[in-house]
Structure formats: structure tokens, C-alpha cells
């Protein structure tokens, strides 16, 4: 256990120092470019680095805790092992600043994930992938509520561009959607905690760790697609490389006291993509007041390692140097 923790901690440090939270990929299918979305994952595998992803949200107070500002600084490194298989390592440093209290900081658990693209249709700009994410419990800081147990999340991803619409609907062609669905299954059903009151009585609590259905995605309108393939409306740089996007990042516990109660955020924003990196910024709007009544923010710098140094970053153990992510 100690060895596992040390290894995982080393990975976290390596990530924060040298490389890269949820696996976020970019890619091309047909002539459609999908950017890496900020809050949800898309179906692509790629060689890339998100550094950093910064999010801010003021959480509502509860009976047990005052309203708290939460700032997450995340990084993620993704690597292809084959043209259709990729892995990702992600870490998050969390700052919790409660009203009237002193801030606490610490690393969240390391997240390791794998993804396999099993269906591609360039003509229909359609991509499907399966994934498995492992939240490595016990290595993050309890001060920032990192779980002490592992969580395994099998996932299904899709991406679909609408370039195959009839020409009568040409202004709809730049639209694309992505979707991500996962079932987060904790490795421990109950977490036993001990509390001692002033009289020395020990109270044992065993709250349920719920299984959570995670679902989300994005709706995108790619202005580069509009300009290059549908209609040149004379957009100047840098607007001609922008993708207005609305992301949805939601989760619904399937058991426990909050079973069936969906929480999450809707994130409208914009992503600009260049040749080697992209910039994204989004508002974070809670879908209800269970988590927060405030609007937060999310921003990211994301590097396309496969475009920056293809000879280095696209090397794979069994397929050699893949080169950059190519249109399929």
C-alpha cells in the first residue's frame, strides 16, 4: 500500500512538474476538427497536454461547512499507444477558501484513464470510443476531500459533426456535438469514520459511497469549418479560428440519500485553436442550487504535442512514430 502510494505520488509530482484532469482530446475526422473540450471528454485519442486548466466556483454552504471558494489547478498528459488507443494521466491541486476561515490546499487523487476508438466514419464525421477511468484513492489530500478509495468509471464517448447535412441546411453544417457517459463505481461501498464527542463517546458512521452516473457533452459551432467548407463570410483572425461551445457536465447518484438528484454545470464559452495549441474559456453555471448559486469560470491552455514535436511525442511501442492526428 505504501509502495502504491509512493508510486502514485511520484506520478502526481511528475505530472505537475512536467506534464498534465478528465482526459481531453482533440482530433480530426474527415474534414472536421474537434477541439479538446474543457469540462467533458470527447472520443479522440491524441498526444497532448493540458497545462493548466483553472476552474473557480463558490460552493454553497451546508449545515457542516460555510460557503467556500474552490479553485482547481489541473494538468493532464495524454499519449497514444496505437492509432486508436490512448492513455491519460491527470492531477489536480485544489484550494478551498471558506468564508470566515483559513484556506486549505492539497492534491486530489491521481486519475488514470484509457480510451479506445472503435468506430470511425469520416464521411459522417462520426466517432465512437470506449474508456475506463481509474481515480486512484488514498493518494490525494483528505484536507480537500480526496477519496480514500478507488473509483472505476467505464465510459462511452461519441462525436458527431453535421457536415453531411443537405446543402439546403448549409449553415447548420458547422455544428457538432460530443457526448460522454460514465458509471463511477466506488471500490468501497461504505466509508467508516469515527467521531469522539466531548464526553469521550465514540460515534461510528458508515456513509454510503454512491454509484454515480456521469453524463455530459458539448454543442459546438466551428467558425473555421464555416469559413473553409461552407461559406466565407469574411471573418478576420482570430475569430475565424474560434469555436463557440456550450458544455454540459452532469452527474446523478444512483443510490444513497441523493439518489436521482442531478447536479452539475452548463458551461457556455469559446475555444480558439491555433496550429500548436488552443485556448478556452467558459462560464460555469450550476444547473441548480445544490452545489452553488454563483457563476464560476473555467479556462485552459492546451498543447497539441503531436503537432509540436511529432517525431518525439507520437512514438508508440508497437506502431512506431504515428505522426500527428490525421483526418481519417
Amino acid at each position, binding site marked *: 500500500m505504501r509502495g502504491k502510494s509512493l508510486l502514485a505520488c511520484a506520478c502526481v509530482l511528475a505530472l505537475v*512538474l*512536467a506534464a498534465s484532469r478528465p482526459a481531453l482530446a482533440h482530433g*480530426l475526422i474527415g*474534414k472536421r476538427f474537434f477541439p479538446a473540450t474543457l469540462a467533458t471528454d470527447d472520443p479522440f485519442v491524441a498526444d497532448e497536454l493540458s*497545462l493548466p486548466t483553472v476552474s473557480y466556483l463558490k460552493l454553497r454552504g451546508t449545515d457542516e461547512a460555510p460557503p467556500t471558494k474552490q479553485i482547481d489547478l489541473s494538468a493532464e498528459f495524454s499519449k497514444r499507444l496505437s492509432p486508436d488507443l490512448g492513455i491519460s494521466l491527470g492531477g489536480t491541486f485544489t484550494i478551498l477558501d471558506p468564508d470566515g476561515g483559513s484556506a486549505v490546499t492539497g492534491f486530489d487523487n491521481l486519475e488514470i484513464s484509457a480510451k479506445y476508438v472503435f468506430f470511425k466514419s469520416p464521411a459522417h464525421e462520426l466517432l465512437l470510443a470506449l474508456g475506463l477511468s481509474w481515480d486512484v484513492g488514498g493518494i490525494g489530500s483528505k484536507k480537500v476531500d480526496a477519496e480514500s478509495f478507488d473509483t472505476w468509471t467505464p465510459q462511452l464517448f461519441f462525436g458527431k459533426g453535421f457536415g453531411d447535412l443537405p*446543402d439546403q441546411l*448549409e449553415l447548420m453544417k458547422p455544428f457538432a456535438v460530443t457526448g460522454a457517459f460514465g458509471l463511477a463505481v466506488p471500490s468501497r461501498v461504505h466509508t467508516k469514520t469515527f467521531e469522539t464527542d466531548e464526553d469521550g463517546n465514540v460515534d461510528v458512521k458508515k456513509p454510503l459511497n454512491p454509484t454515480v452516473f456521469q453524463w455530459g457533452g458539448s454543442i459546438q459551432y466551428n467558425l*473555421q469549418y464555416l*469559413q*473553409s*467548407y*461552407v*461559406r*466565407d463570410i469574411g471573418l478576420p483572425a482570430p475569430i475565424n479560428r474560434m469555436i463557440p461551445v456550450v458544455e454540459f457536465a452532469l452527474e446523478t447518484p444512483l443510490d444513497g440519500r441523493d439518489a436521482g438528484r442531478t447536479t452539475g454545470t452548463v458551461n457556455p464559452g469559446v475555444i480558439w485553436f491555433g*496550429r*500548436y*495549441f488552443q485556448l478556452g474559456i467558459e462560464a460555469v453555471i450550476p444547473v441548480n442550487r445544490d452545489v452553488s448559486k454563483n457563476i464560476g469560470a473555467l479556462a485552459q491552455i492546451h*498543447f*497539441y504535442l503531436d*503537432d*509540436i*514535436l*511529432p517525431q518525439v511525442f507520437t512514438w508508440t511501442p508497437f506502431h512506431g512514430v504515428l*505522426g*500527428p492526428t*490525421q*483526418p481519417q
Partner: protein
Amino acid sequence: MSRLLAVAALLLMPGWAEAHAFPDHSEPRVGHTVEASPPAVRIWFDGRIEPVFSTIRVEDAERRRVDKGDSHVDPADRKLLEVGLPPLPPGRYRVFWSVVARDGHRTQGDFAFRVK
């Protein structure tokens, strides 16, 4: 920080790294109608492209190829891909292009224009 600076330096080094080439603009403009048959279709990309592996062709509404077959990258401007056209009757035409950036990154696409 030093790694960030190194990455930033790589991004700023001209010619060191080339990525996917996307169209910047074209003549005729994507999705537009021109008053008379244009002498050629020209596409300017956002990066230099490889002459040997970059092609362009033009088809009419019946999917018959109508260009002169002289697709080439302009030797004086390695971002420009063009193909000559004979006089075209009024109608809708579609341009298909495929280019390879200088380091082997391939992109492809198509767009329509109309002759009045």
C-alpha cells in the same frame, strides 16, 4: 517554468515545426457566386504545403471533372494551391483539395461556388 519556456520557444521557431495546413481564403470565395467564369481556383493555406502531394480538382453538378488538370503549388508562394479552369457555363461547382504540410501532416476538404 523552464519546460514551458522551452515549449514556447519551439512554437515560435519558424520552420522548426509545421502542423496541419488549413485554408485561409480562396478565389472564388467559399460558398459564393461569381459573375463570370473564373480563370482558376486558388486556395491560400495558413502554412507551406508540399507540392508533390497537394492536389486540387473541380467538379460540376454532375460530378464531372471540369478543371484543366494542371493542379500545382505556386513556386513563389508555397501556401498557394491552384488549378486552371476553362470557361465554365453557369452552374454550381465543387472544389476538392488535399494537401500535405511540409512535415507530412495531411488535411483535406471541399467547398462549393456558383457561376452566374
